[in-house]
């Protein structure tokens, strides 16, 4: 079955093609399509041609399911198990393979630097692609977990904007928390 093609125009006036089913992974695009006011090309003034192909790649992979591997692994499978009395083990195995494959794909897909991360997070936020937003937010969180402030600055490529006095004060606050957390 061939799907209807949708055209997306990036902020720098480049046009990209996407299947309608894939485009529906985005709430924003879905609303435009369902709204019926589709006039050939959908302009996306907040998404550049650098990042749009990456977004389209995600949408293609997820068709219309709108979820990440995490969501499927934690929620979907167990829930079905409780509802269906004669749970199909084969089905369960196939589902596991599918989730594992998706996880691997996501891992490779998310392998990029922090610049792409910001752009992708903004695009996912603007286009309301929840699964993609979750992935980018999780990646950013992993860049903070267990890191020192200096490592976090390096990971996000940011400079401290505190005055030397504020900096001094912040260090004291941090020491205080660390002391209290000395208990393992």
């Amino acid at each position: 079955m061939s799907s209807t093609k949708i055209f997306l125009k990036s902020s720098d006036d480049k046009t990209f093609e996407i299947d309608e089913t894939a485009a529906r992974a985005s709430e924003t695009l879905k609303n435009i399509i369902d709204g019926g006011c589709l006039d050939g090309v959908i302009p996306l003034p907040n998404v550049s041609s650098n990042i749009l192909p990456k977004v389209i790649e995600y949408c293609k992979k997820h068709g219309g399911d709108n979820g990440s591997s995490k969501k499927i692994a934690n929620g979907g499978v167990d829930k079905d198990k409780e509802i269906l009395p004669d749970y199909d083990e084969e089905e369960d195995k196939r589902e596991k393979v599918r989730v594992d494959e998706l996880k691997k794909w996501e891992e490779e897909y998310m392998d990029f630097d922090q610049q792409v991360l910001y752009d992708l997070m903004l695009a996912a936020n603007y286009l309301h692609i929840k699964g993609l937003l979750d992935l980018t937010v999780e990646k950013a969180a992993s860049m903070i977990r267990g890191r020192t402030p200096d490592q976090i600055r390096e990971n996000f490529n940011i400079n401290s904007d505190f005055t030397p006095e504020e900096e001094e004060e912040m260090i004291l606050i941090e020491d205080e928390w660390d002391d209290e957390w000395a208990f393992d």
Partner: protein
Amino acid sequence: MTQGSTVDLCVLPEGCISNILSLTSPRDACRSSVVSSVFRSSLDSDSVWERFLPSDYQQILSSSISPSPFVFSSKKELYLHLCNNPVLIDNGTKTFALEKCSGKKCYMIGAKALSVVGGDQPEHWCWGPFPDSRFSEVVQLLDICWLEVRGRMETRLLSPSTTYVAYMVFDFTESAFGFDYYPAEVSVKLAAASSGGEEVKAAYLDRIGRNMRQAANLDPMGKERQQFRQDQVKLQPWIMHRREDGCRRPTTPTEPAGTQGERGWVDGDRVG
């Protein structure tokens, strides 16, 4: 790392940064506040701290017997309060607190809610207040030849996917005796699990710092948690899995038959 990038963290909508922080831990989030003002302002967001508080915290606090109602200007303030000030719950038989690093739930079971063998016999045990205890009543051991104290905790009340450790909190009277000679048996087990999974260890309920002897896995915690003046014996760690149900029973201690008599205080079992 891209140097001189045009896009900065500041361009992210505020909700995004709060969202990112809420996926870290309270400790990570606080650390990140030192990084830059963007992080610092996001850290005060209620949406971040709401995620760090246990999902059922309101229900737990509704059983609090605290005289003052819980009114806090922010979720962060409430979180920090619950870390530093254990709250009496369940008619004052338990306390509830949060472990600061992780926001995981910690409970302390008061002596009144423990099962003390012979606890109703005034010739063996004496009930009354104790100045250092957070509970209104503790139990004092007068003299007994069989010391057995058990505590129960429903696993559904604990934080999921968390390694818990049970401690026994107690203190000695001036005239306490009989604890030096034999180790006590201590164990933690899942009541719903089939028998045999319980690992029994030996621990000397000895005075910390004085004549301390190491029995298997005895780990006196007195110096690490200074807010407790009573001695603590770490009983046993266990891992809480999300789908486990039933009751955990930190069982403490079961003295072998025919031992010396003992005297001392029992305050409670702290699970945390």
